[in-house]
């Protein structure tokens, strides 16, 4: 170690410091440098863009299905193609769009919002992205090669088991899940560590931005729920590949074991998608109401309560399988109870807008659309939490309407608002407000037109997952309306994307175009590689509204190599300094090795003992300290 270490501080600030930090934190140029990147902003954007591409693919598939259902007895698609289409649509939307896009935004924003320079384990974050990408390419590659999964997004046995699930389709589904779960779990761990240990000094748990609270709760939910589906799909693969009998009733297995483990993940999954959106809403509502959040502790406790309650509801997806009476009562009560914390949050947001000076710009419009749509979805949820109604409506379009109201209304609307809100931070430019309003109204009204009639067709008895329906049952009009609505939404999304592209040349944004209160707006737009020249020190929940000319900072971190400041996990007092990992190609190489093993294991169990060898070599190379590296990441057991 040299005798004199260069550190930031009153005597070393401004452009000189910034160019020294840029040198320390930037990655090498070229393809290898691009693949080796450990910058959370770069990885976050990759996640978001990839997830939006999968959204487009799955959305196009939805439009294809809507064309098939536009008129009765249609022959545009046959039953097999329809089966594969709704399976690919659901699997892509849940595993390749909804969770990854939320995690992508979290990866981008969390370090900026807590005032640190990078994620806790940036190489693990990079690895997770490559795993996610490989999983998505695997699923869609198999689909284009003619053996995409076709058993529904939850791949129920015995349909997906060895007896009925002929070919490799169900294996492809199961292994896609493994890819995405590895990625999501890795991200959840890094986000949790980042939030608990890297918050800016003074950012006590009572001052954490609500989006970051939502991220923490979501990450813990991922940690506790996703092992269930990873394990479940591993058991399914082993039933199919090596003849275990977990789900085979003839050998004392049980098909319902699959459903229990799937929904133990599947229900929390809904909140894993929804809670980040509540974080978007809290941030947008605060900024556009120009006042701090009404009932901050209530919102935080509601997030935590939702996270806990979400684990007690999974059986309501299984009411139609036959349960003991007490099971029906318990899970009905639990399902209804989860609406209480969500309701409390909605009251807090409304109170904040009510007491503030709201500016109804596009991000806030999406929040209003969320209130309207999500409340309808929530109410239809309370309806089907009642067992007698659920037994009638199970597997009808009423359910399809319900969960699209909850998922699109609850997650995608806030996401579109969030993209509009944070786009200036990512690009340094504002999105077009006029085009934004046009696409907002088209998305909002098109959505209602597409999905509200499904309540009616469901009540009329139209079953899900059936490729056509006969004429003369009153299903023509609602289906025609749904199809028209779906195309309006499709057009609106095209306009939204167009807005994203043309706004690259839009009005310059500056650091804080919305006059927002949280730390990500304290740095330039787009932020530099090192995020902050000096680490901010926080004295309230709305740091940028405290003093509009200056920002309290701490100083004394190394400048010539990447270094992070760690703080205590409750009170965020300064604790230690730690090096941050340098760019490395090995996460990419490791992801390739793991992918080869995963894909190989669809075809032969021997892929695992042989495939593990290159994985071990790549991981060792990843963790082994390099000569040129003053800041290697520690070996994780």
């Amino acid at each position, binding site marked *: 170690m040299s005798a004199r270490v260069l550190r930031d501080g009153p005597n070393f600030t401004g452009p000189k410091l910034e160019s020294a930090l840029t040198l320390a934190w930037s990655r090498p140029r070229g393809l290898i440098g691009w693949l080796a990147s450990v910058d959370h902003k770069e990885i976050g954007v990759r996640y978001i863009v990839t997830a939006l591409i999968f959204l487009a693919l799955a959305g196009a598939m939805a439009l294809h299905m809507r064309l098939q259902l536009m008129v009765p007895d249609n022959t545009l698609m046959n039953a097999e193609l329809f089966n594969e289409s709704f399976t690919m649509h659901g699997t892509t939307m849940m595993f390749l769009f909804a969770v990854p896009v939320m995690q992508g935004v979290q990866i981008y924003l969390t370090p900026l919002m807590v005032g640190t320079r990078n994620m806790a384990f940036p190489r693990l974050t990079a690895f997770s992205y490559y795993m996610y990408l490989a999983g998505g390419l695997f699923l869609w590659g198999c689909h284009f090669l003619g053996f995409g999964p076709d058993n529904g997004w939850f791949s129920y046995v015995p349909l997906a088991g060895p007896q009925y699930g002929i070919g490799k389709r169900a294996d492809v589904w199961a292994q896609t899940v493994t890819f995405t779960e590895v990625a999501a779990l890795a991200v959840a761990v890094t986000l949790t560590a980042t939030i608990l240990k890297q918050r800016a000094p003074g950012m006590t748990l009572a001052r954490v931005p609500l989006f970051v609270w939502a991220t923490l709760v979501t990450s813990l939910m991922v940690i506790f729920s996703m092992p269930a589906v990873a*394990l479940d799909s591993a058991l399914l693969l082993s039933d199919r590949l090596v003849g275990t009998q977990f789900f085979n009733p003839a050998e004392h297995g049980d098909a319902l074991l699959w459903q229990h483990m799937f929904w133990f993940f599947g229900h929390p999954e809904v909140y894993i998608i929804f809670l980040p959106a509540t974080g978007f809403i809290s941030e947008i509502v605060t900024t556009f109401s120009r006042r701090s959040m009404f009932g901050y502790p209530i919102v935080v406790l509601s997030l935590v309560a939702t996270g806990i309650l979400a684990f007690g509801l999974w059986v309501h997806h299984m009411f139609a399988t036959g349960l003991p009476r007490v099971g029906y009562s318990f899970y009905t009560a639990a399902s209804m109870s989860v609406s209480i914390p969500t309701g409390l949050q909605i009251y807090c947001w409304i109170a904040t807008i009510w007491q503030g000076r709201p500016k109804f710009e596009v991000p806030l419009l999406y929040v209003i659309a969320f209130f309207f749509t999500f409340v309808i979805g929530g109410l239809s949820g309370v309806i089907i939490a009642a067992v007698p109604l659920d037994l009638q409506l199970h597997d009808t379009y009423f359910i399809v309407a319900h969960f699209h109201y909850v998922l699109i209304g609850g997650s995608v609307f806030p996401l579109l608002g969030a993209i509009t809100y944070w786009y200036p931070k990512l690009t340094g430019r504002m999105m077009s407000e006029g085009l934004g309003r046009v696409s907002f109204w088209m998305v909002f009204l098109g959505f209602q037109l597409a999905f509200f009639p499904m309540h009616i067709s469901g009540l009329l008895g139209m079953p899900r997952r059936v490729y056509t329906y006969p004429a003369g049952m009153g299903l023509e009009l609602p289906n025609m309306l749904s199809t028209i609505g779906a195309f309006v939404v499709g057009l609106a999304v095209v306009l939204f994307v167009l807005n994203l592209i043309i706004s690259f040349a839009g009005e310059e944004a500056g650091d804080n175009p919305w006059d927002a209160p949280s730390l990500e707006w304290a740095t330039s737009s787009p932020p530099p590689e090192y995020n*902050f020249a000096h680490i901010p020190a926080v004295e309230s929940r709305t740091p940028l509204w405290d003093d509009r000319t200056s*920002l*309290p900072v701490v100083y004394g*971190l190394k400048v010539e190599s990447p270094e992070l400041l760690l703080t205590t996990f409750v009170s965020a007092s300064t604790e230690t300094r730690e090096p941050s990992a340098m760019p490395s190609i090995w996460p990419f190489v490791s992801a390739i090795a793991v992918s080869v093993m995963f894909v190989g294991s669809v075809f032969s169990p021997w892929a695992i003992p042989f495939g593990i060898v290159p994985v071990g070599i790549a991981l060792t190379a990843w963790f082994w300290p390099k000569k040129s590296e003053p800041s290697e990441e*520690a070996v994780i057991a």
Partner: protein
Amino acid sequence: MTLVPAFTEDVSKLESDGFGHRSLTWWGVIGFMVIEATGFALLFGAYFFLMSHEQSWAPLPLRPPDLLAGTVFTIVILISEIPNTMVKKAAMRLDLGEVRRLLPWVVGFGAVLLVIRAFEFNSLNVFWYDNAYGSILWALLLMHTTHLGTDWADTFVLWRLMVTRHGEQKRRFVDTDENALYWRFVWLSWLPVYVLIYWLPRLFQ
């Protein structure tokens, strides 16, 4: 940054690298241990779910697994905590010589355990494809073996790292400390697995 920085605290005097919850990687290790513990818990849940369908466990006419290999394994893995604790304490004292002397013992214990584990697979008295009981027993044992194998490989790499000049950095002692923490998870998670594989099929037949 257009806001003018108002300098408050100088953090340059803070320690770089700390042990336990002061270390970032400690939180990573804890995170992965929670994930894996959840995986074990779910597999235990599946075990009891399948068990609840049976009149007897192990299902007749199957014999419960033979006790010898599993019990020897349990005793050896419990003894392995002695060198593990010693290496953990040596790491926290930054005693490189002691760490270098003890790590081969931990690696050696792991190797012995892997050999005993092979005999365990041979003493289950059921194959994974026979019935759901056999499947869940093999799954439990395989899941634990995965942890055993990966931690053994990890400890081996750490040992080879610690005998190089990299071992002189404080950060590598933190790694050693956290590796020992993970080994505790490996043997603690074994104890319920041992009961589920070897004892419940005896008690409920």
